[in-house]
């Protein structure tokens, strides 16, 4: 009897342990604020937005900031990797076979760059005496489809990094005036090059992957900086790498702010009797157009909410403005058709002469 009781106790304990273990695993989807079916792009976007908000430097009053930030990094590390995500979905956090590899700093810097994050402060004001390496500006071409839906561009950065090397080198070289005494009352001033001694440094090429986000509604010439990913400076800090957005022209849509403009050519018959059609939008969804009245050449139709998302608030969208032009029949009409048309349309002769270029 006692043995059976012991077994039951053991089983209960085991069950309790398992359930707490499962419950103790973190809900990575909740941490990132994405659904279980989120695409890799959604996950990257969520990470980037939250990483800016939750960075400990920005939340110095919150004692839990480090933990929240660490959770975020762990969540991204698992959900952004296909294999790890599968394991996590099946077995929970404890089912993950390997420990965490790269530190959260690696993940964070692949989105924002390297060199100590300055929130809102201008880096150059910090210390003018530290020399800085060159900045690199890359013109990144983006399509209007990417402006509409957003996208992430992966980029491999291969850069020279200053590493310690054996020995010493000359640094902070400058010209100085030296006064030497040639004899009693006779002096000579000469210019001399004077250098300090610094630890030796050599440049080694290193490679890492960066994630550039093309945010929805991004405008031409906007820049995405990656701190410290520019050129190194042997005596100082590396410069920055900046991606400058260049929005490409589109064959169908023209952008004006958050609005999109497009043109549609219809036949003369469609202009007179009406028509129905679909326009394929930038993400493939169809914009349905129905017209049952007469459509004049140059007529415009406004479709609210079918423009681009606003960069500052993606819930606000611009409009799609469609301008119609009419294509007249190519073949000439014979007398019978001309009579038919005169009869059908019942529009008398107008023939009004006026100055069309001055608004009369």
């Amino acid at each position, binding site marked *: 009897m006692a043995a059976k009781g012991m077994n039951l106790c053991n089983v209960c304990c085991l069950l309790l342990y398992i359930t707490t273990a499962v419950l103790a695993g973190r809900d990575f989807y909740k941490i990132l604020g994405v659904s279980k079916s989120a*695409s*890799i*792009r959604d996950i990257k976007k969520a990470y980037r937005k939250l990483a800016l908000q939750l960075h400990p430097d920005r939340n110095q009053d919150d004692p839990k900031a480090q933990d929240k930030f660490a959770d975020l990094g762990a969540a991204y590390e698992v959900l952004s990797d296909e294999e790890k995500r599968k394991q996590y979905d099946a077995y929970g956090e404890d089912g993950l076979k390997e420990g965490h590899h790269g530190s959260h700093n690696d993940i964070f810097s692949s989105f924002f760059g390297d060199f100590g994050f300055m929130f809102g402060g201008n880096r150059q004001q910090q210390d003018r005496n530290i020399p800085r*390496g*060159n*900045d*690199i*500006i*890359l*013109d*990144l*071409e*983006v399509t209007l*489809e*990417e402006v509409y*839906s957003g*996208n992430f*561009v*992966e*980029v*491999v*950065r*291969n*850069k*020279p990094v200053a590493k310690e090397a054996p020995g010493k080198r000359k640094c902070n070289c400058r010209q100085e005036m030296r006064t030497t005494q040639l004899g009693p009352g006779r002096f000579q001033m000469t210019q001399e090059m004077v250098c300090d001694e610094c630890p030796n440094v050599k*440049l080694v*090429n290193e490679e890492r*992957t960066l994630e550039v986000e093309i945010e929805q509604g991004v405008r031409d010439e906007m820049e995405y900086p990656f701190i410290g990913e*520019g*050129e*190194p*400076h*042997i005596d100082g800090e590396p*410069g920055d*790498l900046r991606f400058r957005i260049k929005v*490409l022209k589109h064959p169908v849509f023209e952008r004006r702010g958050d609005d999109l403009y497009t043109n549609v050519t219809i036949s003369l018959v469609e202009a007179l009797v009406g028509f129905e059609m679909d326009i394929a939008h930038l*993400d*493939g*969804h*169809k914009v349905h157009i129905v017209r049952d009245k007469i459509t004049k050449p140059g007529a415009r139709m406004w479709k609210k909410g079918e423009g681009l998302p606003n960069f500052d608030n993606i819930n606000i969208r611009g409009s799609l403005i469609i301008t119609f032009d009419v294509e007249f029949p190519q073949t000439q009409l014979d007398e019978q058709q001309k009579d038919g048309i005169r009869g059908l349309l019942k529009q008398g002769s107008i023939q009004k002469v006026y100055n069309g270029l001055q608004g009369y």
Partner: protein
Amino acid sequence: MKMEIIHAVHVLVKSLLIVLLWSDCEGRESELDYVTCGSLVKLLNTRHNVRLHSHDVKYGSGSGQQSVTGVENADDANSYWQIRGKPNLPCQRGAAIKCGQAIRITHMKTGRNLHTHHFSSPLSNNQEVSAFGENGEGDDLDVWAVQCDGTYWERDEAVRFKHVGTDAFLSVTGEQYGHPIRGQREVHGMSSPNQHNWWRSMEGVFIQPNMEPLHHDEL
């Protein structure tokens, strides 16, 4: 007997290497490290160990256009060039450049294109290579073809650049400038392929191809 053992070990090691190389292959193109459209890159002349470079200094002879040189140091942003498509035929961002493909090589800092024409170079009397145009737009003499073996321009492979308008190869033969660009080498065009016109991509910002399509055609 000894030779046979050595031979057997040799074969074993070779096949092991092949197996290891094979197992390292993954599905994604980016692992194979090509130079892609839109990337920024520094180009190293493998014979003379200098990087292709330009700056706001004009030639004192020849065309008087912006000079193009070879420099020894590896940390100057003026050695970055952007790989772009031909005029009026843009290449798709992130697409690997094919061997034989015609491209423009645009100097990042000044927005001028690598260019050559029938002028003499100042030191060696070869064909002058300059940087020409504004904001990435110049003329038809800005177009070069990448010459390499295989299908795509691989990042760690030495390639040649053949000018489409004059058939000259981008080269360095070692002549050095004096003041104000002391120590920099002359870069010029030569008519024949040789050991002086091999170039390798080094440091840079390499754009990877898009992963997923943006369109959702399902309804």
